[in-house]
């Protein structure tokens, strides 16, 4: 698992762009839902974690399915 993560980090470096992209989407979407800054921020953090968590689950499922391939 660590070696595959290392390879992922080295070769698929565009994947890291997902983090700022998810952050901006979370922030802008939450800002369009609420008016108060602290509520926007809390909601954005939660949405960001949901997006990253979902992507993490998809990655884990694909990694398990491709085990020893």
């Amino acid at each position: 698992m660590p070696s595959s993560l290392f390879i992922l980090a080295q070769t698929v470096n565009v994947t890291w762009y997902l983090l700022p992209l998810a952050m901006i989407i979370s922030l802008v979407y939450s800002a369009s839902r609420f008016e108060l800054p602290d509520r926007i921020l809390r909601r954005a953090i939660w949405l960001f974690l949901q997006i990253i968590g979902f992507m993490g689950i998809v990655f884990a499922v694909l990694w398990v399915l491709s085990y020893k391939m």
Partner: protein
Amino acid sequence: MPIAPDVERKKPWEAGNVFVALILAVLVPGLGHLYQGRIVKGFIYLFGILGLFLWGVKLGEGVVVYNLPEKGLTRKITLHYAAQFGAGLVSYPALWQKQRVAKNNNTMIEVDRTLSANFKGILIESNSDAEAGKLDGVIKLKPESGEYGPETKGTFTGKLDGQPVKLELGGKFFLDRPIAAGFRRTLKIGVTGGIENGRAIIGSIPRPFFDGYGVPPDQDQLQEVTGRLGKQHELALVFTWIAGLLNILAIWDCVQGPAYGFGDEVWPTPKPDEKTDPDKLDPPIPVINATTPV
């Protein structure tokens, strides 16, 4: 402090003229909010949406914002550009750059005036195109009358693989069109003097921003950029698409306010008897079927 949802509050999205706010929000993400005094949200949209869009342009080396409908199709706006269009002013140059690129815009085989620019490229063998070193410096070219007509001559001063070098230039010359997609303009010219005599240099000089931004690339250029940048170019496109689509949410928020309210409202939970008391429920809708007399 929690507030009941039916309490009357000052709505900042109703401050100022709504049409002015709408136009500003359409042109520049977040500007409508700043006009309404919604500073925090204005900067979230400004830096979030505009930043994402410009980041995409940077990642795609400027070959990102364009409207290039396929020939023969009646649709004049591609979905690609429709998504970018939402980002506002930054996407509008694509509307007129297509006309500019078609007028008096040819590659050059001679310079018509003195040219001085930063140059980045490589030194190559003229007969095999094999790379002989990396060049970084300043190129100066001027038109001269030669034995067989006008020629382009000049010098390159800079570094060859980190070592200072000065090259005399002349002979076969090529310079990309003045108006084309991207912020670099391909240049090729032979080397006529010194130890590098008989070789050539190929590279690029900067293209002015307004001659490169929003210009539709031709197929060769698109193929070169997508081949060189790969997934990074696709990611650049996605960034601009998402930025354009996110600004639609921001425009809506500017005109109508946030979708869920301020965010500190406490909605009363319905009491159990309100749910079950038949007198407090809506009256049932009468069912009319074919046998019911009218």
